[in-house]
């Protein structure tokens, strides 16, 4: 009987030790190894915040130039260059569309504008992790910009392994009225190319959150500035359509 009791006590002890080891292992894993999740990796190291800043800056910058990083064909007014989106150098004629799909152009230009900056965000993020003692293996960053009503989304594919954990997808959302502004500008262009003019009152009636300013210049160029009343975002461009000469001689 005594021997049997001893065996039972030994088994209990072994079980207790095993249990302690298991619990300790779990605690060590949780506290020391720290499984890093997708959202924590991005948010905790300001990866998403960094990209948000980059995207916001890009939207502001591109909006002032009608979506072009380096607009080539522009009209100078008040010290600024306004991209011609529709243009004719003749009188009495409606304009030839220079940029038919603003959203596509904006997408494309934005992706090229923020490429190096997103790479920097990513590299800095990885460096921060390494500095904190993580074993990080980074990959090639690829991303896609999606412009939708009220938001600009950036879907980033960045294969990354931190320790034994692997991550790849990052989604960043930036609130922005740029989609609506692009669509308002598109609508104005449709009017300019077909009728030679546009009605800003109607635009402002449909989109009460925006101010649509139209400035007609003496050479027939019309400068448009769209501005969000609350957020202050701007989208500006120029058009020359159905211009009239001064006086009787063209």
């Amino acid at each position: 009987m005594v021997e049997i009791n001893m065996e039972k006590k030994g088994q209990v002890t072994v079980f207790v030790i095993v249990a302690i080891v298991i619990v300790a292992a779990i605690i060590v894993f949780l506290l020391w190894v720290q499984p890093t999740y997708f959202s924590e990796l991005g948010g905790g190291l300001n990866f998403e915040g960094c990209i948000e800043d980059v995207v916001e800056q890009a939207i502001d910058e591109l909006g002032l130039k009608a979506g072009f990083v380096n607009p080539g064909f522009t009209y100078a007014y008040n010290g600024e260059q306004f991209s011609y989106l529709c243009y004719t150098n003749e009188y009495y004629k409606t304009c030839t569309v220079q940029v038919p799909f603003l959203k596509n152009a904006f997408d494309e230009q934005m992706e090229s504008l923020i490429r190096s900056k997103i790479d920097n965000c990513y590299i800095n993020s990885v460096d921060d992790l390494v500095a904190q003692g993580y074993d990080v293996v980074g990959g090639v960053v690829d991303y896609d910009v999606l412009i939708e009503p009220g938001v600009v989304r950036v879907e980033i594919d960045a294969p990354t392994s931190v320790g034994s954990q692997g991550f790849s997808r990052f989604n960043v959302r930036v609130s922005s009225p740029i989609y609506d502004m692009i669509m308002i500008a598109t609508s104005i262009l449709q009017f300019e190319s077909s009728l030679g003019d546009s009605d800003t009152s109607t635009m402002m009636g449909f989109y009460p959150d925006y101010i649509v300013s139209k400035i007609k210049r003496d050479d027939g160029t019309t400068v448009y500035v769209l501005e969000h009343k609350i957020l202050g975002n701007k989208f500006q461009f120029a058009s020359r359509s159905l211009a009239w000469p001064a006086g009787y001689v063209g």
Partner: protein
Amino acid sequence: MKGWIVGFVFVLMIVVATAATAISDASFCCERTDDGAWCLNADEIVCDDSYKVAPTSCETTSYCRLGTCYESEEGICMENTPQRVCNDFGGTWDARDIEEVPQCQLGCCIIADQAAFVPLVRCKRLSTLFGVSNDYRTGITDEVSCIATAQAQDVGACVYEKDFERVCEFTTRSDCGAGDKVETVNGSKVALSSDKTFYEDYLCSAEELNTACAKQTSTTCYKGDVYWVDSCGNRENVYSGDKAKSWNFGKVLDEDSVCKANDGSAINCGNCDYLLGSRCSEWDGYIGGPSFGDNYCRRTECKDRNGDARVNGESWCVSGSGASGGIGYSGASLLGNGQDTVGSRYFREICVDGEVIVEPCEDFRNEICLEDSIPTSAGEFGVAACRVNRWQDCVLQTEEDDCLNIDRRDCIWVPTVTGMNIGGGTQSGVFTNPSGATAFNNPTVSGGFGTGNVVAPITGYASSDDEIEETVSNRQGGICVPSFPPGLKFWGETAQQNCGIANAKCVVVKEKGLIGGEKIVEGKECLDEDWALSANRVCAALGDCGGYVNYQGVYTDDGYDWKVNGAKREFSPNNINIIRGGFTGRIVELVEKVLG
């Protein structure tokens, strides 16, 4: 016999028929120019060598032929687009007009209780973006009907069961997807079902529907009005401080039945009215706000230049300086009727959220501003728009009926002036300057370059020749002139040609008496200063010509030559005041000549 030749020379020349339509001598079609423009008719030197160039008009080339470009992702169609540009931006090009391209056919896209008159692909895109089912109606062929259809949709409570909870969405019948069957509520309870059921005209907070939505927990802005919102986030009826009346026992109630449309003066009525100048806005004050919620009908108004109140969205016309944006000249009545001042321009002003936005019409008065008003319960709601000034063929009209045909042109018919010839004696529309361009001398050119501020108007040419020995006029019944005189680039040569279109020369014939003395037998009226005044009126009405005031109200007399027998004359102070008041004078050359 001795006589005088009294010659008034106003020479204005138009080259309407030969007016070049291009800014430059464009004889080549550049697929792309050096500065990045697509498909321009221009000089070869500006064409980008790496793109196509042809010595012809772009309209005749294949690479710059314009067509319709459509994009399948967003569903957008653009016309007047070159094929290369379309393809480069990811579109599909079609040589047909936009009306003939199937992908660009417009239809009515119903998005919940909103509507858009767009192509089918665009409708699908919008439906996806806003998370509603696609409802595209090709049978509706105009935008007004489309909007009316959306507004006329049945609205009500869309009830269904989800996760053992009775869920409700306030929406349209089609968006609910419950079919056409009209559900009625009998008694105080309705049966539970996992299928969607549409209860027309019911709010989600209606007790009979037995949902978890509590009534009137907050307010929101919707279509410019303030609405109650239930605890589930569903829109209810228009906001009113009288909650019971607004709730209406859980049934939909017309906004005007909740409370009368107001101009922002009723803080607890959410029935805002755009034409009364009120629109839903968030309350950002501390006291005096609405009894419930954070939204109210905000009244925004502006003050126009006369100090009159203008409500939000109202627009009106002004005329004045493009440089300063103000009405430099106090003579606001000097609009139209051939009396627009030199350098003036039409503007439209709009009241937007308490701020006046200035929108210039086309420069050189190629556009004019028209305004009208819509009667409302609070007075007139002004609306204005810039519209093309149709002055171009006024001087070609020789019949009064043609001249005053407002469907075709903006002209006025003024009394003829003795000896006045329009277009150098021709009526064909092709005019030449009989005196040559070098005879012009615009003393106001220096110092005025590039400023846009016309110091003095350009006048007609005063001829010093004495070749014409009789008074001849080609506008004996009257003269047709622009109602809104076009502006001219006084610093350019074209202005001289423009002002040379009118020519007035009067011969005064005197007869010597047998016992001495002289008797005027012909052209006596030309000796009167009123004759010069009338000629000047015609001149100024043709454009920025003649002796007249500029937009700052400054009168200048260096824009005309009035000569009598070679001696220069000027208007008397009294007539200058008449001109300042909007009545213009004439330009005269008087040449003395002995006839016998």
